[in-house]
């Protein structure tokens, strides 16, 4: 009986593994085939011969380089602004203003229900005023992007904060002499680091892929520049698109790797001469 049960379990495990690999393979194909097709297109000339001319000519477009730099700067500013605004607000609402939780959630999720083009209509007078009175730098787009990424980042952070007892941990830290800054920096942030990482990944991905707002407010970010380039030279445009996708992928993997490194196995553990490795004594 036991042998038969083990055999059934093994068969189930194998089936599950196969299912996982097949699902992964289909998902990978779904993403990789278009990229491979783009790569193929960007490495052939008009006569169909293999060439790297489009790739080589990417640096020859200075506007493109500027747009890439601007998009990266926007991603950085947006992510930082979002974290600085959202994390303390959400923690404070959980600690002191629980009755406002629903309102904050509603406000944060609101941009999700508003089409980007409608956002642009609302933002236009603001940006017009900004350009006239303060600055017409592309980096001011970060203000709009913070609003744009709010729903996604709110959800990511909310699940992270929901996984820990924010109130008890904060009160414990306060009773031990921690200022509110220390509570945030030394207690809350390390315990929601995964949620912060997820929120950052989402925010970077959204900003790098944003087109509608930038284009309609007449700013040239990476996506806008790609569209302009496509009109001028489709080959280079596709080459840049592939390069941008690969770059974004590597950037996100890099952020995930740096932010998600496990803290275990650090060198600052206390030397208790090999103690603490025995079985857990139940008390």
């Amino acid at each position, binding site marked *: 009986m036991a042998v038969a049960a083990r055999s059934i379990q093994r068969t189930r495990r194998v089936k599950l593994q196969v299912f996982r690999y097949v699902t992964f393979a289909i998902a990978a194909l779904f993403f990789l085939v278009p990229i491979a097709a783009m790569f193929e297109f960007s490495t052939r000339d008009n006569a169909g011969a293999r060439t790297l001319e489009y790739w080589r000519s990417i640096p020859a477009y200075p506007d493109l380089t500027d747009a890439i730099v601007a998009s990266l700067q926007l991603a950085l500013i947006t992510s930082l602004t979002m974290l600085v605004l959202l994390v303390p607000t959400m923690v404070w609402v959980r600690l002191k203003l629980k009755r406002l939780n629903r309102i904050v959630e509603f406000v944060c999720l609101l941009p999700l229900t508003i089409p980007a083009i409608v956002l642009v209509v609302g933002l236009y007078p603001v940006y017009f005023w900004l350009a006239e009175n303060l600055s017409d730098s592309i980096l001011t787009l970060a203000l709009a992007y913070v609003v744009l990424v709010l729903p996604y980042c709110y959800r990511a952070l909310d699940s992270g904060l929901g996984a*820990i007892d924010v109130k008890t941990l904060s*009160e414990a830290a306060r*009773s*031990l*002499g921690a200022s509110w800054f220390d509570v945030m920096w030394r207690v809350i942030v390390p315990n929601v680091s995964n949620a912060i990482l997820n929120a950052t990944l989402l925010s970077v991905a959204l900003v790098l892929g944003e087109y509608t707002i930038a284009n309609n407010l007449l700013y040239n970010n990476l996506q806008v520049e790609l569209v302009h380039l496509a009109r001028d030279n489709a080959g280079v445009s596709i080459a840049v698109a592939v390069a941008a996708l690969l770059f974004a992928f590597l950037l996100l993997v890099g952020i995930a790797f740096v932010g998600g490194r496990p803290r*275990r196995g650090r060198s600052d*553990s206390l030397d208790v001469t090999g*103690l*603490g490795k025995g079985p857990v*004594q139940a008390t």
Partner: protein
Amino acid sequence: MSGRKGVEVRLENLVRRYGTVTALDGLSLTLAPGELVALLGPSGCGKTTALRLLAGLEESDGGRVVIGGDDVTGLPANKRNIGMVFQAYSLFPHMVAWENVAFGLQMRQVGTAERKKRALDMLELVGLERFANRYANQMSGGQQQRVALARALAIRPQVLLLDEPLSALDAKVRSRLRDEIRRVQMEVGITTLFVTHDQEEALAIADRVGVMQAGKLEQLGPPTLVYSRPATPFVADFVGLTNRMEGTVRSGAVEVRGQSIPLVHPDVADGPATALVRPEAVSIAGDGGAARGPLVGTVIAVAFLGAVSRVTVDLGDTTVLAQLPTSAASEHPAGSKVQLTLRPDPVLIQREEPAPAGS
């Protein structure tokens, strides 16, 4: 680390309201240096609110908190030098045990070497030096609460606050950790306020027990006094089991089913009243047999509690609980007829409105 070196703590006329609900209604309480006072009461009686006001985690609507002669009412929690152990597990999950214990020292700018040394000392005090490099999720609930105790004590606080630290633990661990807390508290000599709803815990651990109801202190005194001489019917009811027996007050005593029992507070008017009689004051005089009388009844249940048993006796118009040594209780199985006697320990009475409740 022995000897009493705690400070006096005074809560003076503390008031705390949440909207229309008054959680604390003029609470005054003084803890002597090095004393452990347990605040006991049902949920919502205000005991945790009192503790949180003392910790500075909430602001009062009136009254003062004085620690070691200093008025700390307006000070935020992080400036009060108070150690606290919470009901919920409160170890920082991203830190190992020694880092948790050293956290308060880090906030006080203590150097790394000194921090580590003191953290290890504290873990040794609670018997967990072996677990210094373990994370919270690698420890049992009891171990986590011991580390939390070490963490609270590491900062050498003036006052230690324990907010139902044992309630999440199973009975055996709870009893062991309760003794451990008392040992450590005595060793450190720190003034301690312990909040619990578990009367056994409060009576076992405290120098004095304060019983609270509706934001007020009903009685404050040594555990034996609170148990044997409850100041009010609420205290009698809340601390230990109580039989409610109809009787008549006559000349400073209450006559219950033909037996006269002295009153805790004899200066009350004569008349009908309900006497609150402890189960251990009820004993079985012998086999009821064919005897008749107001204290003859039938055993309807015997609950085995270890060394003692609780016998429920049906007297016809009411049931009475008697707590006896198990050997004595075993002689009277369910269905047998018994004759009860009431020990003449002073009792409280309760009366219907408008007479005062505590007489």
